[in-house]
């Protein structure tokens, strides 16, 4: 899909200094205009109610699990694929977490790796179908969306499973108590840090480093940018494809317990249509669905735009029908504003 829409990034002067380099690693300043705008509107309309730790934590926390999905989806998009199954994978992982907790009383630190393995397993199947059977990833992951949702509903018997499990003394079991730290509103790590926010940020940082600093990261970009060139350069395109889908699944698995804790229960419908939010975050953040173009920093910004927009509109008590309208409009405006060639465009410039 279309180098046509991919505007050339401006050339960097050769003698750029360290500061500018660090900065440019996070994308052009313009990429943040949309976000800054929303922050400004939030502060202007709601002042302290908007700009305080609790509100921002709540806002980002509510989106954190989708944000984590967005990171995985970004990896897949970078290779030129798409992953529609992340919502379902999150769902089955959250169900797994709740069941491990309620049926087997596992400790949280045991639950997370298990959920990640579950997610990675289905992600691997996505990758295998895409790379080996050469099914378009849209179809493969759409099928997986359906299959996994069906399994999720089947294992749970269509009943949501709570995570606040009371022991015989009527109090929460120690495991359930600990599990709440994954994101049940009102529960913080070290009494200060809201785990979903922390987890989201850590995932972003880790994958930002992986993409920018490692061989694997280069190969991901190469596979998306020009798969033929990548193959002829000895990049194992098949392995990279399988790897990104597996990682995306793994991240969905990681987000599962967070979602379960946030809702204090695993719903058989959990995560439904999260994939659209996740993809939207990546694409608003500048990732190109044609592959080869995008950053985790961009996805992070995209996720913030989506969640803070919701928050600002909600705080301003905009009616919900109008929220839908305004949200759509602002997403368009934000995307247009952060296009690097915007100003050139308005100078009446080149149409390529």
């Amino acid at each position, binding site marked *: 899909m279309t180098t046509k829409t991919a505007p*050339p990034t401006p050339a960097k002067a050769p003698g750029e200094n360290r500061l500018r380099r660090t900065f440019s690693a996070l994308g052009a300043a313009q990429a943040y205009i949309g976000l800054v705008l929303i922050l400004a509107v939030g502060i202007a309309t709601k002042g302290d109610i908007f700009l305080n730790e609790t509100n921002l934590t709540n806002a980002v926390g509510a989106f954190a699990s989708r944000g984590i999905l967005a990171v995985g989806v970004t990896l897949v998009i970078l290779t030129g694929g798409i992953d529609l199954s992340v919502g379902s994978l999150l769902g089955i992982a959250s169900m797994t977490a709740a069941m491990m907790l309620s049926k087997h009383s596992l400790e949280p630190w045991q639950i997370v790796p298990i959920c990640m393995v579950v997610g990675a397993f289905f992600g691997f199947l996505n990758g295998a179908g895409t790379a080996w059977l050469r099914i378009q990833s849209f179809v493969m992951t759409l099928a997986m969306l359906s299959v996994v949702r069906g399994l999720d509903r089947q294992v749970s018997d269509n009943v949501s499973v709570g995570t606040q499990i009371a022991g015989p003394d009527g109090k929460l079991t120690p495991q359930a108590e600990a599990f709440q730290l994954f994101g049940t509103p009102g529960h913080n790590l070290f009494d200060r840090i809201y785990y979903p926010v922390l987890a989201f940020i850590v995932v972003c940082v880790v994958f930002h480093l992986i993409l920018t600093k490692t061989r694997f990261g280069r190969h991901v970009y*190469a596979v998306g*940018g020009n798969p033929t060139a990548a193959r002829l*350069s000895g990049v194992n395109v098949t392995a990279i494809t399988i790897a990104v889908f597996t990682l995306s699944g793994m991240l969905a698995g990681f987000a599962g317990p967070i979602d379960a804790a946030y809702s204090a229960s695993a719903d058989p419908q959990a995560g439904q249509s999260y994939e659209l939010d996740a993809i939207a975050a990546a694409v608003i953040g500048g990732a190109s669905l044609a592959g080869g173009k995008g950053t985790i920093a961009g996805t992070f910004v995209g996720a913030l735009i989506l969640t803070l927009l919701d928050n600002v509109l909600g705080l301003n008590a905009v009616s919900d029908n109008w929220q839908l309208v305004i949200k759509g409009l602002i997403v368009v405006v934000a995307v247009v504003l952060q296009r690097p060639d915007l100003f050139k465009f308005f100078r009446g410039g080149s149409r390529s």
Partner: protein
Amino acid sequence: MRAIGKSFPGVRALDGVSLTVAEGEVVALLGENGAGKSTLMNILAGVFKDYEGEIEIGGRVAHIHSPKDARRHGIAMIHQELNLVPELSIADNIFLGRERAILDRKAMEARTAELLRGLGLDLSPRRLIKQCKIAERQLIEVAKALSQNVRVLVMDEPTSALADAEVQRLYAVIRDLTGRGVAVIYISHRLEELEEIADRVVVLRDGTYVGERSEVDRDELIQMMVGRPLGEMFPRADGGGSGVELLKVEGLSVPGEPGSGRTPLREVSLSVRAGEIVGVAGLMGAGRSELLEAIFGVHRPAAGSMSLGGRPYRPRSPKGAIRRGVALVAEDRKAQSLVLGNTIAFNASLPSLGRLLRLGTVDAKREQAAVERQVNELRVKAPGTRFTVGNLSGGNQQKVVLAKWLLTSPSLILMDEPTRGIDVGAKAEIHALMSSLAAGGKGVLVASSELPELLAMCDRILVLCEGRITAEFSRGEHPTQEAILEAAMARQKVTTL
């Protein structure tokens, strides 16, 4: 390589071809478009998983079925079609597939800078490929091949986008490599290059081995390649150009684009008369492509005016230009000219569909007939007009591009490197075609990096340097290559920065 065979669906590309190369030797591979040269080399470089025959390296059988296998045996290849990742930097591209698990940016960039300098390129290793020009990309491919520890280096038309100076530098590099015992296989359609660099020339025809020579005898080689003797190479009788003025460009300026490395044009004036062939010479990045594209309505000029056939000509898009009877054979056939996934007929008829309509629908019969006629005239080697363009050999793709534009019956045809990657036989045909177009009262404006071609074909030659016309020679003046090169390097101190 012994008894190599390879079939594609519907095409037998290679049949029992053998080839040996010694250490330190440069073997040239010669053949018509579609003879199977690239296919043979792709097999050596591990592009294809299966093929017939076997490959031996250093006396032992080597099983090469992937690019990784090839690299393990010290084989590197510069592919005919550029294979770089546009969104990555030069350094990242050069080390693609061979990085350390955790990138060592400093070392990569230092080594890249060194390699680029060795090829005379002054580019930041951090520049993105999409910001580099085609010629630069070709040299980056060379740098990429050189960065490996090679025993056998395959170069598939490495010079097709290069001008003379760069070609000379490439030869120096090749000589240095052979001096160190590297075997080089070199594919080119420029016979004069083979004279200069090749120790031995191997000729293929229709996927089979025809013979080899260690002395380069032009006529004999052509006879071997084409299977028939060929007439005059540049069959242009003395120029026409007496006709009326067809295209007039006055003071045309087009802003450059810093991001994409596009050269700005500064106050270019020129004219092309009916029946005239006008050449545009210049070094890489001189703005030749830019000029042709501007005339074709691709870029918005900032100043200047044009007229065509006496009427003002202000194309707002290529569509407008085509409507006025202008055609552009663009520089990069893969990126700019062809829908690779579609058929020959689809591509060839695309700009001229308007005249193939019947009752508002495309008349498939007429389309088929028209395309077939044009394609046969240009001798495109393909199983039929419904063959996928992307599966044609490079030279045949170029011919499809020519066919496409000839079908629009243009009055002015702009050609950007029209014979790039074309075999000598076909080149002669294209030259003949240009002559006959001119003779038929059309105007031809051709940009080419091959000066002999320009000198032989053109009635006038314009020389561009940094987006400015620095000289104009007419056929009567009998210009020399040196004179043209001098004008091409007439740099001005740029004061506008």
